[in-house]
């Protein structure tokens, strides 16, 4: 499934909800379901602190793809972290770098991605893209050189 297809799935999930209450209940459920980051990665260097809530993000590069695990201290933030991971984890660096993530806006959660909200999410997306860039530079440029 491409990123666009995955985003479409999530958009369809959210279309069923009649109001913000149902949406938030779903987010909270997803927050609780988030596969927790391995405790050993819940360290200060993986912490993205916002004024409001904080996010831990870990990234790994395996066989040309990048895998993210994450956690947050706030459950609604965690729900959105879950959505972002569903879309961006297990992708190539280029896919991650090209992802626009418009679906967050389309499912009506834009306010949580506002930089002024300071909940760690905007910085988390930035960090995910930085990981993609760094892994790409580290693994993919050396591949090119060895060829």
């Amino acid at each position: 499934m491409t990123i666009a297809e995955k985003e479409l799935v999530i958009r369809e999930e959210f279309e069923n909800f009649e109001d913000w209450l149902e949406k938030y209940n779903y987010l909270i459920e997803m927050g609780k379901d988030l596969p927790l980051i391995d405790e050993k990665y819940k360290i200060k260097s993986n912490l993205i602190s916002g004024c409001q809530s904080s996010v831990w993000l870990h990234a790994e590069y395996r066989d040309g793809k990048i895998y993210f695990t994450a956690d947050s201290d706030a459950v609604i933030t965690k729900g959105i972290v879950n959505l972002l991971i569903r879309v961006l984890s297990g992708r190539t660096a280029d896919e991650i770098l090209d992802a626009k993530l418009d679906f967050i806006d389309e499912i009506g959660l834009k306010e949580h991605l506002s930089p002024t909200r300071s909940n760690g999410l905007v910085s988390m997306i930035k960090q995910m893209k930085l990981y993609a860039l760094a892994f790409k530079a580290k693994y993919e440029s050396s591949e090119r050189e060895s060829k």
Partner: protein
Amino acid sequence: MGFDIQNVRGNFPILRRKVYEKQLVYLDNAATTQKPDMVIDRLNNFYSYENSNVHRGIHHLSQEATACFEEARDYVQKFLNAHSRNEIIFTRGTTESINLVAQSFGRKFINPGDEVLISQMEHHSNIVPWQMICEERGARLLVVPITESAELNMKAFEKMLSDKTRIVAITHVSNTLGTINPVDIIVKLAHRVGARVLIDGAQAIAHLPIDLQNLDCDFYCFSGHKVYGPTGIGVLYGKVELLEEMLPYQCGGEMISEVTFEKTTFNELPYKFEAGTPNIAGALGLHSALLYLDRLGIRQAAAHEDEVFKYALDKLGQIDQIIIYSRAQHKTTSLSFNLKGVHPYDVGSIIDKFAVAVRTGHLCTQPLTRIFQVPGFVRASFAVYNTTEEVDIFINAVIQAKSMLMS
């Protein structure tokens, strides 16, 4: 005039607006208060018909603007019952006022080995400027602890005072806990050891009558926007004898007397501390805001706020598994709380959907989050236009948040 809440609400146009198609309930007054027509009209009129730079202009408009600007200063002096108009310095707000004192007073009077006293309940604005000047001058920053009941530990305070104490910088009212500190006693005790006292009045100015001649503190600061005035204007009150000895904080136009390339002599008070073109409209807006509050009667306003606040405390206290941090005996209208084990961001995000504006986070008091071992707080803070009906909407939102987050 009698206190009529519906009349008061009618003075604030923003209260008629809707958020998420619901009536706005604004309970973030400790962050900033809304503005009455009187203030909005004053700003509008100034920019529409009176705009001109103040001081030194000989044309008619400039003289008019200068007169209004200086009338605003006179009114602030009266409002605070300061001794002289020269003790009223216009700044951008409380933060700038404190920075001004930390820098100007600090460079003149704080020396290696001296001590500066603050408290655990200070806003970052009354912590960081002192940390910086202490580091620069080789002085020590001492922190007065708070008690279980969120009050200043006065026994500890008394013990920490010594002849090394140069200045005590304490908030009048805690922005997070709502605690009203016994500033009159603090001033007396500090003066006894020869220390100066700065009171951060940001959270007091809209709720408590201030009488500086009686209080006798050396510096008092507040922001216009927390007392129904515009943002970007604030006040530093300082005793003349201290301000006279302190050097300017910023340099430029307005604050000089004579400039040659060899030496500059400084203007007299209060202009010595007002470099550059001041926030003229802001000062006029602040004048209108204080006039508004005076016409309502600050005591009547406070009595109304207290009623709404007590109602909110009572209702919130009835909810199971709520932790309330505003527990001091004497407090004003900041109500900080958490749902047990629930992140304040989650609670705030849900309350927001009810068009209720509350604040969440560390509230610029990170040391307090460490003391209470929480990631932050949810804070509802009240002003003169809030009602018990609004409290009911807020309480309903909290109950909804609880059922969504704690099930």
